[in-house]
C-alpha cells in the first residue's frame, strides 16, 4: 500500500516537473514561424519608436500580426517603464535602439528620417541619442 503510494507520488512529482519545464520553455519561446518568415522576407521591419512596421503593401494577415505583436510589445513596455520609473514611449525608444542594432543582414529597419532600410553588414543608421 505504502509502496503504491510512493510510486504514485513519484509519478506526480515527475508530471509536475515536466509541467514546470514546459512553462519555462513557453516563457522564452522563439518567434512564431510566420513572424520569423515575415522578418526574413523584409515584409516587416523594426522602427525607431520600438514597434514593428509593415514594409510596403503586405497581406492583411501580416498587418494583423504586426498589430498584435505591437500591442504585446506595448504591454511589456508599460510594465517595464513603470518598474524603471520611465515612460512607455521613452522605454520603447530605448528598446527600439537595441532592436534595430540587433537586426541581422537582410532584415528591414526604419532610419531616423522614416525611410525603410535593409540591414547590411555594417552598423544600422540609428537615432543620434541611442545609447
Amino acid at each position, binding site marked *: 500500500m505504502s509502496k503504491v503510494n510512493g510510486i504514485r507520488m513519484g509519478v506526480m512529482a515527475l508530471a509536475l516537473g515536466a509541467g514546470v519545464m514546459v512553462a519555462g520553455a513557453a*516563457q*522564452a*519561446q*522563439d*518567434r*512564431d514561424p510566420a*513572424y520569423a518568415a515575415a522578418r526574413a522576407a523584409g515584409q516587416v521591419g523594426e522602427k525607431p519608436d520600438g514597434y514593428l512596421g509593415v514594409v510596403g503593401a503586405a497581406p492583411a494577415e501580416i498587418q494583423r500580426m504586426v498589430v498584435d*505583436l505591437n500591442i*504585446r*510589445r506595448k504591454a*511589456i513596455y508599460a510594465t*517595464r517603464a513603470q*518598474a*524603471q520609473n*520611465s515612460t512607455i514611449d*521613452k*522605454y520603447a525608444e*530605448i*528598446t527600439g*535602439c*537595441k*532592436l534595430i542594432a*540587433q537586426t541581422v543582414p537582410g532584415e528591414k529597419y526604419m532610419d531616423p528620417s522614416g525611410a525603410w532600410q535593409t540591414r547590411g553588414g555594417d552598423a544600422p543608421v540609428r537615432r543620434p*541619442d541611442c*545609447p
Partner: protein
Amino acid sequence: MNVPALTKAARLATVCPMREAGKRGRRWGAMMVLMVGATMAGGCISVQAPEKPIVIELNINIKQEVAYKLSSDATKTIETNRDVF
C-alpha cells in the same frame, strides 16, 4: 516721571582724548591720495566676470546614466520575450 536736568550734562572726560581737528583732515586727505594713486597706477587686481555665463552641463550626464540603465533593462526585456521581439 521725567525730571528735567537742571544743568547741562557734561560729556565724559574719556571721550575723544587729545583729538586735533587739523591732523584728522590731513590723514583723510593722505588716504584719498593713496587710493587714487593706486587706482591710477593699475596696482589693483581686477577680476572680470566672463561674458558668457558659466554653465555646467550636468543634465547630459544624468540623461546618459538613465539611458544606460534603461538600455540594460531593455536588453533583458528583449531576451525574456523573444517571441514578441
